[in-house]
């Protein structure tokens, strides 16, 4: 039996989910009962990372209502109509894009929080480089070859992959729904993640289907190799077994193919619900690279609205699913994007690559609210103006590692290289 670092931590009250069975656990914090409960909960805690690929326009996602006139001035062609913005309880100065009613509801129910203006010093404006920085948690001017979540998993699960799967960790450490395992999951020598290449391959696995034209000579050969491949994959069995345990999922998920992010999260929900003990899931959706025509004439509609609608719908359905599957307390999720976009919109009705942007975090046991303040929009923003950073993205990671997974400060520092302030997200 391997000792896991996050089992060894001492626990403080603030980390606990607010309520369980009607009893405030905060009230019990420090008691031996809660201590052991916390250990158990820590052990089966799951993190779901949602990558918004392309650089999400944060300013049209979380709108600083208190500066609406400056906002309107900077974005005459794409500013969202004030009356359509979705209000957040207790935070009159801030509102969400009209396409995000599910996330508004989650916020108002205390299951979703926002970290304002997340970035890092000397932000990079290249998609690929900025993505790499977020994945590796590197400084802007440093190249790191491992991913932040990969280093975390490598520290906790010593001897991976040689000694795995084993009885204490029979499941994949991390699962990527996507063609390639994200560099965030790259460990020092091996990737710590397993890719489920796309939703249809997942359902083919579950249903035992092969997906080629088997009525041909080459197709028959492929079928065979596919079968051996599944049999060979040491994790195919546990994934299938977990999936088979779940027979019903939330009705809030849209029909398959309508919302790719929802399709991915539905798989994640099914695997968590089926008891897979995988620690980290990574999903992604895009493309948020809205250089041109990000809205229609009605600025609350159009490309960006559609993208956010999918995110909101998917997260809403996923959260509902977690509750239905009775695993809501062991899951937290967060969104991230490689950068935000420029304050001032461009003449094509879009926005160019920018810097800081909000991060959403969600879960049934998070501490809700808004961390940080509305970004300040200059009275007359120029094309070069960017939103300044309020929170280093590594502070978010640090909080997740420390407060969600229970790593102590030294262990967190080992993963992130430096110490970053933790945030009250849990």
């Amino acid at each position, binding site marked *: 039996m391997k000792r896991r670092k996050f089992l060894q931590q001492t626990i403080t009250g603030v980390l606990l989910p607010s309520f369980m069975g009607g009893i405030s656990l905060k009230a019990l914090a420090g008691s031996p009962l809660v201590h052991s409960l916390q250990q158990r909960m820590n052990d089966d805690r799951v993190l779901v990372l949602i*990558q918004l*690929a*392309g650089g999400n326009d944060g300013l049209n996602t979380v709108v600083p209502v208190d500066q609406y006139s400056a906002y309107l001035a900077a974005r005459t062609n794409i500013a969202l109509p004030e009356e359509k913005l979705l209000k957040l309880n207790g935070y009159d100065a801030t509102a969400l894009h009209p396409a995000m009613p599910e996330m508004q509801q989650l916020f108002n129910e205390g299951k979703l929080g926002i970290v304002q203006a997340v970035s890092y010093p000397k932000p990079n404006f*290249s*998609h*690929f*480089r900025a*993505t*790499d920085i977020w994945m590796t948690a590197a400084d802007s001017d440093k*190249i790191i*070859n491992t991913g932040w979540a990969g280093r975390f998993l490598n520290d906790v699960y010593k001897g991976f992959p040689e000694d795995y799967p084993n009885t204490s960790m029979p499941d994949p450490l991390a699962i990527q729904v*996507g*063609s*390639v395992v994200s*560099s965030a999951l790259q460990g020092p020598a091996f990737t710590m993640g397993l890719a489920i290449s*796309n939703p249809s391959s997942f359902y083919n696995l579950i249903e*035992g289907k092969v997906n080629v034209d*088997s*009525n*041909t*000579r*080459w197709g*028959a*050969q*492929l*079928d*065979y*190799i*596919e*079968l*051996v*491949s599944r*049999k*060979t994959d040491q994790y195919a*069995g546990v994934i299938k077994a977990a999936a088979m345990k779940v027979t019903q999922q939330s009705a809030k998920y849209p029909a398959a193919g309508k919302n790719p992010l929802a399709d991915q999260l539905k798989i994640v929900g099914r695997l968590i619900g089926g008891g897979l003990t995988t620690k980290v899931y990574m999903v*992604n*959706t*895009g*493309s948020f*690279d809205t*250089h*041109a025509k990000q809205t229609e004439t009605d600025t609350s509609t159009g490309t960006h609205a559609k993208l956010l609608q999918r995110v909101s719908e998917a997260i809403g359905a996923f959260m509902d699913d977690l509750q239905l599957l009775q695993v809501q307390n062991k899951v937290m999720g967060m969104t991230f994007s*490689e950068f935000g976009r420029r304050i001032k919109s461009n003449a094509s009705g879009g926005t160019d690559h920018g810097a800081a942007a909000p991060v959403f975090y969600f879960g049934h046991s998070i501490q809700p609210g808004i961390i940080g303040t509305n970004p300040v929009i200059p009275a007359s923003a120029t094309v070069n103006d960017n939103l300044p950073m309020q929170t280093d993205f590594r502070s978010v990671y640090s909080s997740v590692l420390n407060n969600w997974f229970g790593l102590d400060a030294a262990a967190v520092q080992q993963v992130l290289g430096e110490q970053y302030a933790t945030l009250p997200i849990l």
Partner: protein
Amino acid sequence: MAGQIFAGDFHMGHLDNGRRVNIYFTYKLEAGRYFAGIEPDQYSVQYMELPTVSSNLKKYKGKWGRDEVKHLLKRTMFGAPKADIDFFTSRSLRSTIKLLIETTDAVPSLPVNNYNDDKYTDEEILPGDTWITATKLSGMNSGRRRNSFKSWWIGLMLNQQRSVLEKMVLFWHNHFATETNTVDNPTMCYKHNVLLRQYAMGNFKEMVRAVTLDPAMLKYLNGNANTKKAPDENYGRELQELFTIGKGPGSHYTEADVKSAARVLTGFRIENKILPDVHGVFDAGRHDETDKQFSSFYNNTLIGGRKAKEGEGELDDLLAMLFAQEELSKFICRKLYRFFVYYQIDDTTEKNIIEPLAKTFRKNNYEIKPVLKQLFSSRHFFDMANRGALIKSPVDFTVGLCREFNVKFPGTNDYVNLYGLWNNIQNAAAQMQQNIGDPPNVAGWPAYYQEPQFDKIWINSDTLPKRNQFTDRMLNNGFARNDKKISIDPYLFAQSLQNPGDPDALVSESVQLLYAIDLPDQEKKYMKEGILLSGLQGMMSDHYWTDAWNKMTTRPDDNANKKDVTNKLKNLYRYLMNLPQYQLS
């Protein structure tokens, strides 16, 4: 365990040529589709209603483009490197086939002493000199030289000319299978290989005669011990069962025929066993001079016993008798067909392909080239139904990868590292169950003959991960010997393509080069967006890849960009090589 995937009925039955009894089980999965398994780790998918491919041996007159060249090269060479596809696409099918068949290596290099180490120094053969002239054989140098031999052979495959020769050498090695472990004499192993090269594209009848007198074969199948006092039937049996007549539907020779053939073959033995000029001789004193009677299958042929030196002539009588059987030509053509086209020979294929091809073989007095020429020029060979229908053998897989990705090896003057790295490739193929020089037995590798799975045997729960590990490894650290390393340079490979800065073109051309069959556009789009564009979608985002690609030239010192582009290319090629499609030829 098999039962975890399937459930069904068990059957027991004789499969294939009567040599083995296998227990197998079939499962009806869906209408018309059956799965059969042999051993827990081996599954075979039998599609009982796979459509018959009825195209014939008439000259192919269809499209001659990159896909056709690629198909021809993947089958007749080890992999189809872009440069070779370019070369032949500008030529006609006719001239391509001519080049592939007529080009034979001038004189291959000779295997050298690469093997001095802290435990052994060859006192006779200097480092870097060939050991085929060696006169001293010992327990210390035998294994080392045999390893050198195998490395050398892999080197010939890796550096093959634009010719079917190397594939044919492997074909004949599998056909006239011998094992270096049993022969246990590196000079004999080397000479056996030279013999296969000499006759690979020549006359089959002459080849069988030469193999009969080949020292390695005399040792391996005990011809050396076959004397009138104690006839050894081993070679006499395999000569008929595996080398000439086979066990196909038209083969009816008898056990008595095996005994008679063995007696004809008495007297051949190895001369100068450990010297460089080791060869087979006819030793009249050991020859059975009595008459040899054969069965009705051979038209009751009587091979009259001949005296003294004349006894050797009985071999020619025997060959004449064997080669009078039409079944012989069909047997060889079936084997060629399975090696180069597709494993399953149904009635239609037997009638449309095997019979006329065998006729060509006989009509040309068992010259091999006309047969290959007819097969490779045929409508049937280029039939879409047969493309991608073979599973790559381990040697094809490993050597083909090195050739298609243009993996650079050290020069011949750095023979220690060169042979070491060749050995890494040879060993990788061996791990995947194809150890050249040492097939499992005299029947060769089961993938070339074992009903009903054939080439599916190459893929099981042990070998498939090894294939994936090999491709992953070649993309990452590769193999290293001292200061030398072989690995795939994904950037160089991408650079060799037409338009690598266009992410669609990069994916499409990579797929076209590496796969025998195309992928659906949706899959390609998925790879482009998921891998090259970090999740960005739509045509509008393509320029991000283009910019990053171009920056490799304009800003070569931008390490962040270099890492990004290299990682994306690695991910792309890893993904491509991990898909089942990469296993097909």
